[in-house]
């Protein structure tokens, strides 16, 4: 979680320094979901996430330098600048992509699960998405298919109360956009505190166990909150300040630190960890900054599996 926080704060700074162009969507405040699930996964499990996927990518072990480098469009970037912030992917880490069209990755995740089921590999697929995503058609189709075929896939809705700027309750027929719809797919509703990493971890383990034992998919709604705006362009002014404050008080990191202290981990150890993380972020930042721009030729290749982009002879 700390790494996520450190990395994304840095991403924000870099954005402000105009070193990150385009857009980027931070998960500041939502780190417990990515961290809890990421910790519960096996190394060969599959992750599918959204444009708000830096955290979910990092927790699978993808190096910070590769992530920051991608945000900055550098040669050291995970995708050498071809994808950008919204498309972080690292197949070798099981990060099967970050998808920028709302809901698109849910049926794709079902397909990866189908593949694992067919190949009998015991791999589980996790798809992360937001509250707003529950209102799009692909959500419905993916859930139904996954249940019908009993696929080993876990759908994780991070309900942060907003789509972009519009409160989710204003555009949704039910109160809990994922949990209140579980029954429509014959699933039991699972609604958890997404800011409590222990709760998230336990929930993840149970869902993975279910999936691995052939009992099919789960749909989990984790309640959480993003500390900042939707994307770099958004100061998030549409949110009542009491709401923001109440959720800042539920910061998953501060609260987890307090829990660890209560459990007897001394402040010095925690401080050391924090300093280490900060140092790692600093190092990654410097490394990425020093990385050159990608070679221009790569813009014209790798459309096809042969590495080329020819459409004619």
């Amino acid at each position, binding site marked *: 979680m700390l790494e996520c926080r450190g990395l994304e704060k840095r991403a924000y700074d870099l954005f402000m320094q105009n070193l990150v*162009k*385009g*857009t980027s969507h931070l998960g500041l405040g939502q780190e417990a979901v990515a961290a809890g699930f990421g910790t519960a996964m096996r190394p060969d499990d599959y992750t599918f996430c959204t444009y708000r996927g830096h955290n979910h990518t990092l927790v699978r072990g993808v190096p910070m330098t590769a992530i920051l480098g991608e945000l900055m*469009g*550098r040669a050291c*970037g995970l*995708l*050498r*600048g*071809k*994808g*950008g*912030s*919204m*498309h972080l992917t690292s197949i070798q880490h099981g990060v099967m992509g970050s*998808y*920028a*069209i*709302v*809901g*698109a990755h849910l049926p794709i995740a079902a397909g990866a699960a189908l593949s694992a089921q067919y190949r009998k590999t015991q791999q589980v697929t996790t798809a992360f998405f937001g509250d*707003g*995503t529950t*209102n*799009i*058609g*692909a959500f419905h189709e993916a859930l139904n298919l996954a249940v019908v075929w009993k696929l080993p896939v876990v759908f994780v809705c991070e309900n942060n109360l907003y*789509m*972009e*700027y*519009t409160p989710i309750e*204003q*555009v*949704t027929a039910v109160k809990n956009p994922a949990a209140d719809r579980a029954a429509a797919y014959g699933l039991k509703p699972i609604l958890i505190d997404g800011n409590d990493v222990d709760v998230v971890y336990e929930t993840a383990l149970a869902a993975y166990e279910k999936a691995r034992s052939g009992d099919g998919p789960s749909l989990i709604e984790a309640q959480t909150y993003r500390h900042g705006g939707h994307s770099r*362009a958004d100061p998030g002014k*549409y949110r009542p300040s009491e709401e923001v404050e109440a959720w800042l008080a539920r910061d998953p990191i501060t609260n987890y630190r307090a829990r660890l202290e209560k459990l007897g981990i001394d402040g010095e150890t925690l401080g050391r960890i924090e300093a280490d993380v900060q140092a790692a972020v600093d190092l990654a930042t410097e490394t990425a900054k020093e990385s050159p*721009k*990608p070679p*221009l030729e*790569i*813009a*014209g290749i790798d*459309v096809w599996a042969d590495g080329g*982009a020819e*459409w004619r002879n």
Partner: protein
Amino acid sequence: MAELSYREAVAAGIAQEMRRDPDVLFLGEDVAAAGGVFKATEGLLDEFGPKRVKDTPISEQAIIGATMGAAMTGLRPIAEIMFSDFFAVCWDLVANQIAKTRYMTDGQCSFPLVIRSANGGGSRFGAQHSQSIENWAMAIPGLKVVAPSTPADVKGLLAASIRDPDPVMFFEQKSLYSVKGEVPDGEHVDTLGTARVVCTGTDVTIAALAAMVPRALKAAKILKSEHGISASVIDIRSLVPLDTQTLLKSVSETGRLVTVEENPRLCGWGAEVASIVAEELFWDLDGPIVRVTTPHVPLPSAASLEDEVLPNVERIVRSVQRLVD
């Protein structure tokens, strides 16, 4: 004349028509309270209220379906699809339903609606938020297709689209939102299906659309000043209906045609234009028809890479030069 940004011209065009006609509604994601993610529709909710300016769920099929249903029962709705790439999630409603239903029902109903969308590249948003998809729409019989390059055209063509009795796909080039320009005061309504001759030359006709128009114009200036080549530049503005007369007239005068398309190469509007000219003006041509396009690849995200693939002024100059020399 007031100076407006391309972005402000959007709200100005919608507001002008909503004031005039109570049957005009506007709906889309984050368009009302937030004024749109590109801030192109700010102020509309305040002026017209939540019955006429509506925030929707993330449900593009529902947005476009609702727009169609409202249009066929007496209203004149405007919908926003936030990025034109997202037409892919509601293409059935656009291409199979809205476009075809008038024809299929032997003309029993019409669809006076507009779907606006932020289209095109140059903003470093990557392959799924940067496409130029005006050609997807052009390929579907039953859709009108408009893509303005200036604030004045945004307002005037948007107003014309709203008044038009047929479905209009209105593509705003997102990298132009902050560009400013003079917009006529008072009511401003332009005419669909008319291209504009931006400048007149004698050696070659350069046909361009949206963000490619300023680049073509810049290229024309360089061609003139540095290479002594005199180019006409035509802003197509409307792909359907297509103002072939203006185009054919210009090419018949210059004898040469270069199209500048932001879209990936295959089946772009430039191909259609080239095929029209190659059939109807063949005997007047003094040389091959040349298309400048983005190569047939998705758009990369990094600034340096995106700039590498989008047609730029230098590439236009080089292509024209090679053709004319």
